[in-house]
């Protein structure tokens, strides 16, 4: 009896020990700043005034922003899924030349800095762009295209992974029962993929609704989402109560969405068979799928190509001048450091950030996936699992501003610490790491660990024998993701970065905000370098062929 009790307390102890550090970090560097910021706004003048909330929500421009966020995000999600599904099929079930390159290429936007994307789209559809004749600049269409550009890759990742290992035999059985390919897709394949599609769509909606850089750079002054409205209220109007109310609103929506997504993600039949499927050569009947994939490739490649070509032009002539200028602090007024130095800073910060994210993510993943014996224990693990998803939905702007405001004084005066930027970036990247590792660790059969224990392996040894071989590849892949995400992180970094040590995205934005075609050219070149660095990391991740990153 006492030995069972000891076993229980040991298990709970392990859970607490594993979760303690990540929870503490999340509490101090995420919950505290965000709540602090919210408090500042809601408790204006010392006490809570509900009329502030209703007044803020009642304002017409706020309601416009809410409605705009809702419909652009909805449409962006629908289009991302519509273009992502055929591409997921083509890239994960068919075999054709250049497939790997295309697959990696389509994943690049996901980790591309919003700044780069904004610049790239301007190059394509802006006043001087190739497609300026379409008049898309500053329209909702441009914003939605930007959202799809970013998020189709999420759908490809998530659904592709599920589709790749989906047992083809129920579909074959249906075909043999007389179902046409379309019928098989509608009645067998899509129902089987439903959890993956729903989960991808909810994450995409989340990303769309919190997209900051896209709306800011492509929406101009006319269109505002909740995110840009928060930004505008804070910096242009100094209306902190308004910004805080909107932040809380957004947070509530995000948490609600995460809960719904978690519910929908639970597969009705978890024993659904996962198999290795031989890829099929393309044939004529795949034409619609390939066409749709090509549209997506064009949508992704177009802005990037425009960006590349733009960076190679100096005063209407082909030149590498913009790239050469990256070694200098730039033109009037000069940057504090040369752009190449900023690149080195970015790389160093990204290494630190991904190490932190990896360490925290591993602890969380182990804590969440250990087998639960009681309902309460399982709840605790589920809540932990969800808790570390929240940074995904809280705008980086809120996080950055909150950190800036709350860490500047009191017991946590960390504002000038050099590790603050890597830590903030690690928090932004943490959900990616957790979502990559949890499904893998969760799928390791607990009986393997029991078998190892039965053969005399201690708990640590059992982990080394059973879990390590399963997760070393996903571990590498998730560090690649964290690295890429950190390279491009801009929202939070822009508040925390120290003047003399700017990161590359920050430098790009500074260059963009300065007048003169020289500065603009340098910004294009720097954006290309950043995109290339991210693309290289993604290609390396792609080579690892980790199937489960999609379980985001």
């Amino acid at each position, binding site marked *: 009896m006492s030995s069972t009790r000891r076993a229980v307390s040991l298990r709970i102890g392990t859970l607490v020990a594993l979760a303690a550090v990540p929870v503490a970090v999340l509490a101090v560097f995420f919950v505290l700043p965000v709540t602090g910021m919210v408090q500042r706004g809601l408790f204006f003048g010392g006490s809570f005034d509900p009329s502030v909330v209703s007044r803020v929500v009642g304002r017409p421009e706020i309601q416009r922003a809410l409605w705009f966020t809702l419909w652009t995000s909805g449409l962006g999600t629908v289009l991302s899924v519509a273009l992502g599904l055929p591409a997921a099929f083509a890239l994960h079930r068919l075999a054709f030349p250049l497939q790997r390159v295309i697959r990696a290429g389509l994943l690049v936007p996901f980790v591309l800095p919003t700044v780069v994307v904004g610049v790239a789209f301007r190059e394509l559809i802006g006043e001087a762009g190739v497609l300026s004749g379409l008049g898309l600049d500053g329209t909702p269409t441009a914003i939605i295209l930007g959202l799809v550009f970013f998020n189709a890759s999420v759908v490809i990742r998530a659904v592709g992974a599920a589709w790749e290992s989906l*047992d083809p*035999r*129920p579909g*074959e*059985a*249906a*075909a*043999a*029962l*007389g*179902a*046409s*390919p379309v*019928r*098989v897709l509608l*009645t*067998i394949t899509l*129902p*089987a993929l439903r959890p993956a599609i729903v989960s991808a769509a909810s994450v995409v909606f989340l990303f769309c609704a919190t997209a900051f850089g896209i709306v800011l750079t492509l929406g101009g002054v006319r269109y505002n989402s909740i995110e840009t409205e928060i930004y505008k209220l804070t910096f242009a109007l100094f209306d902190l109560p308004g910004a805080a109310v909107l932040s809380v609103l957004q947070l509530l929506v995000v948490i609600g969405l995460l809960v719904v997504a978690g519910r929908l993600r639970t597969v*009705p*039949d978890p024993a*659904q068979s996962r198999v290795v499927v*031989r890829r099929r050569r393309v044939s004529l009947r795949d034409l619609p799928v390939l066409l749709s994939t090509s549209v997506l490739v064009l949508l992704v490649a177009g802005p990037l190509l425009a960006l590349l070509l733009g960076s190679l032009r100096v005063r209407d002539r082909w030149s590498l001048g913009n790239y050469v200028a990256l070694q200098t602090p730039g033109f009037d007024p000069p940057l504090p450091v040369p752009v190449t130095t900023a690149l080195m800073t970015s790389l160093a910060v990204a290494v630190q950030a991904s190490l932190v994210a990896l360490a925290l993510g591993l602890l969380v993943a182990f804590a969440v996936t250990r087998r639960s014996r009681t309902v309460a224990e399982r709840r605790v693990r589920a809540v932990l699992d969800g808790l570390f998803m929240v940074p995904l939905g809280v705008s980086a702007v809120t996080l950055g501003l909150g950190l800036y405001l709350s860490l500047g004084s009191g017991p946590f005066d960390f504002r000038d610490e050099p590790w603050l930027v890597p830590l903030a970036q690690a928090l932004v990247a943490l959900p990616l790491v957790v979502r990559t590792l949890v499904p893998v660790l969760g799928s390791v059969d607990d009986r393997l660990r029991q078998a190892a224990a039965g053969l005399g392996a201690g708990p640590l040894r059992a982990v080394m024998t059973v879990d390590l071989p399963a997760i070393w590849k996903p571990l590498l892949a998730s560090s690649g993701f964290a690295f890429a995400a950190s390279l491009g992180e801009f929202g939070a970094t822009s508040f925390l970065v120290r003047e003399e040590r700017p990161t590359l995205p920050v430098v790009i934005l500074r260059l963009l905000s300065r007048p003169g075609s020289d500065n603009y050219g340098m910004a294009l070149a720097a954006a290309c370098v950043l995109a290339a660095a991210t693309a290289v990391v993604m290609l390396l991740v792609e080579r690892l062929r980790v199937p489960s990153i999609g379980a985001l």
Partner: protein
Amino acid sequence: MLSLREVSVAYDGKAAVEDVGLELADGEVLALLGPSGSGKSTLLRAVAGLEPATGEISWDGRSLRGVPTHKRGFALMFQDGQLFPHLSVANNVAYSMRLRRIPAADRAKKVADLLELVGLGGYQDRLPGTLSGGERQRVALARALAVEPRLLLLDEPLSALDAGLRERLAGDLRRILHEAGTTALMVTHDQEEAFAVADRIALLRDGRLVQEGTLREVWAHPTDAWAALFLGYARVLEGSAAYPILTAAGFDPADSVALRRSAFVADPAGPLTGTVISARATPEQHRLVVRLDDVGEVDAVADTAPAPGESVRLRVEPNRLAIPGSYARKSVE
């Protein structure tokens, strides 16, 4: 009538099925028998239109080249049933009827009839997850029969079940197929399953057709030593070892002889003498391993158990041995 001529399937340039020719008359059940990796499932999938094949696959003289799976009018049943997990038993069975827009009332009646036929009357509203393995296979069979297929393709239909159930279901399968008058092509690696369900057997090895014929023909005249062993003969003796046995059985001399476990029976008046190596009791008989002079070890059965080391006399049961390859040269028996 299904006919295959010079059918080959290759994966990445490696042949999985090579030059197979077969004919299957209406109402017949043919078993494609072979060890794993012999290409039997690949051949089945080629017939279903799920694998690209070269050569000629035709139905009633009309080529099936370019006809997609769902227009072939064949039904396919997998080893593990592949029921659609999100549909109830009734909706699984009715799947093909929905496709053909059969009215709901007719559908319900047909479903009830088919479930009755496979012994699962009243299971309409169950979900596949709540069924046992045997029940799932029965539902899969009902679902396949609901198509009223010109040809039913069965891929190891019983292999996922445990031994007792497999035997029972094999008998049911044969009865159901014959009652429905269904033409069927069944893939299996289990010779007992093949003998229990099929009318004819085609033996495959390394993608090639080794032998084809009625149960009786195949069983009595295995084409070579490998085929004999795969079909369930216990031993194949070759050369001089075969000679004394053939003589004792009253057969003409041959290169080899395939022996079933019960080819020798302990009999004080038998013509052959040997030494008992081991004896083992089974519920029906005692099984012996006996060393025969000039022959070597053979299997035998006895009603009483002699001790190892004792001498024993054996007689030969001519209908329990076969001469591999004899069919091609001349019929014995």
